């Protein structure tokens, strides 16, 4: 069991870190405060291969795996979890097309998505529920050789910036009478797809989230992704793996941020004539955060190793997502507490870490759903 990263992965991490420290870290607080979605930075990341980390080179990607994707997301999230979320939700659209698309669809969409020239998205959640896909109200009707889609998506990430959006709609019922969903690729220049309200989020603010209005949206036959009736597979397949993996990696970044800030503050802040790092209570909270970070790291990268070697990983990813996202809340709280009054001042990143952590909890499946999945697998 070798738990170390390869030399290439270390070099990759270093390269991403250099970019993040120069182009992301100095602006993270401002983006969060002013609710800015820096599309220009996304384009720069695209040029460096971040937008298509796991896309094969033949489609214009970097040809790497999900482990490398996690390294990229972790490094970005260390300073701006919101920007990492922007990138990771783009990856959901990319992965959907990569894993379920026809050769033509892959050739058509992946190069622009992988290079960051186009932003992707995967919109599944509806007002009737995210965890419960059977409640889908959006519909798709086949009319004379094309499809007409109608409905509404909410809490859709990249709703206002994506050029290529994968949506799921109800296109029929299966043998058991349950709704059958199909996934469709819609481009932003399609007049039938518009963005509605933009949400004002508690955290992960850089990542735009809002409503999508699908109104008599006409798309061709060649827009169906993965085949008719396969929408549930597409949605769950991508969210449960690429989504959970993404949230875990982002959480690692925030955890590291909490840990590093805690250590820095503890060494600088003097009380009772000494740095507070001399106080056991502070030491314990740092130890707890460190342990949380290391455990989250191991769960995450172990799950990703399984994914990259094509082994079953959905349960491991559920465990990693659950643990990492919840650990962020614990660590962020410790960080704020250690900083005393400073912890609640927005000039410091402590508050943003907590808000970003909270905003990450419901993504890619709520904690309770993760527990349902892990219990089911464990009790089987």
């Amino acid at each position, binding site marked *: 069991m070798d738990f170390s990263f390869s030399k290439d992965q270390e*070099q*990759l991490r270093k*390269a*991403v870190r*250099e970019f993040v420290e120069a182009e992301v870290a100095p602006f993270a607080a401002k983006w969060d405060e002013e609710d800015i979605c820096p599309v220009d930075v996304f384009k720069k990341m695209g040029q*460096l*291969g971040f937008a298509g980390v796991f896309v094969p080179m033949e489609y214009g990607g970097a*040809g*790497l795996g999900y482990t490398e994707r996690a390294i*990229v997301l972790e490094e970005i999230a260390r300073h701006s979890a919101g920007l990492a979320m922007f990138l990771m939700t783009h990856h959901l659209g990319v992965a959907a097309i990569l894993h379920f698309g026809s050769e033509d669809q892959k050739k058509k969409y992946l190069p622009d998505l992988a290079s960051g020239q186009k932003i992707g998205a995967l919109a599944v959640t509806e007002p009737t529920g995210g965890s419960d896909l059977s409640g889908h109200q959006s519909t798709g009707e086949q009319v004379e050789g094309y499809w007409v889609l109608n409905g509404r998506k909410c809490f859709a990430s990249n709703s206002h910036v994506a050029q290529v959006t994968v949506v799921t709609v109800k296109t029929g019922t299966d043998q058991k009478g349950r709704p059958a969903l199909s996934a469709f690729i819609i481009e932003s220049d399609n007049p039938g797809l518009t963005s509605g309200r933009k949400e004002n989020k508690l955290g992960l603010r850089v990542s735009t989230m809002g409503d999508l209005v699908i109104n008599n949206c006409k798309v061709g036959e060649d827009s169906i992704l993965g085949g008719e009736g396969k929408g549930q597979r597409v949605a769950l397949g991508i969210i449960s793996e690429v989504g959970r993996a993404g949230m875990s990696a982002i959480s690692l970044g925030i955890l590291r941020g909490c840990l590093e800030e805690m250590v820095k503050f503890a060494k600088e802040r003097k009380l009772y004539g000494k740095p507070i790092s001399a106080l056991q209570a502070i030491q314990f909270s740092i130890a707890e955060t460190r342990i949380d970070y290391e455990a989250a790291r191991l769960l995450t990268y172990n799950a990703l190793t399984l994914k990259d070697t094509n082994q079953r990983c959905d349960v491991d990813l559920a465990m990693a997502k659950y643990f990492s996202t919840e650990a962020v809340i614990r660590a962020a709280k410790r960080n704020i507490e250690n900083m005393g009054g400073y912890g609640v001042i927005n000039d410091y990143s402590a508050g943003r870490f907590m808000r970003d952590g909270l905003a990450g909890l419901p993504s890619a499946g709520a904690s309770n759903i993760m527990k349902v999945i892990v219990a089911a697998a464990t009790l089987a």
Partner: protein
Amino acid sequence: MKALKMVVCIKPVPSPDQYHHVSIDPKTKSLIREGIPTIINPLDKNALEAALQIRDKYGGEVSVISMAPPAAEENLREALAMGADRAFLISDRAFAGSDTLATSMVLASAVKKIGPADLILTGNESADGGTSQVSAQLGEWLGYPHLMHSCGIEVLDGGDSLRVETHRDQARVVYIMKMPGVVSVIRSINKPRFTSLMGVISSRNKPLDTLSSLDLLLDKAFLGLEGSPTKPGDIYQPDLTRRCVPLEGSTDDVALALIQKLRAAGLQL
């Protein structure tokens, strides 16, 4: 336009955020550098970027060389990941203790060994003790014209000469320099590109070779510590600390108090 063969000399230096870890061995009076992570000297990255931009525009080849201990292989890989075509580590115990004259002698020999070069680029100075001497001395050992403080380079005449813009103390001076030549660059010349994921992956397959003293034609009289005219003596850490008396109060109170202090120091206010 003929394709230019360029060589960029890079130096691994301790990462500046690690300077507080640099300590002095009280017994040997020398610096303890082991275990401190290194980065490519920032100005050498500007030099590499300049070479890459020329290659991107006109074609050619960019080689990076570094006279350094074996750990510098990682820095050379970084340079390859940034876009260089091939790399050479010039490493040998015999080079230890080299001052700038000895170092530039070895670099010159390496440049000659790896093939004819049209343009040799390097940063004006290194971040860890920048003497800013190597580029000029390298030019002298090679017998090539050389220029420092460059903030702009343009290839002219189908690749036979360069237009080199430089920053002097009171003027910007533009030269035309015949190639082959050596140019050292300053920060404002460009903004080094970030390394892409693709760059990291492709760097695996690019050639990285080691050259030792056995591979090079060296002037033994100027080799290593023995052959370096300058020799290191004692090292110490200066104590620059002061009293640090706090001045407190409202903004306006503090400003008033400062004005008083300035008057007391002799200013007519």
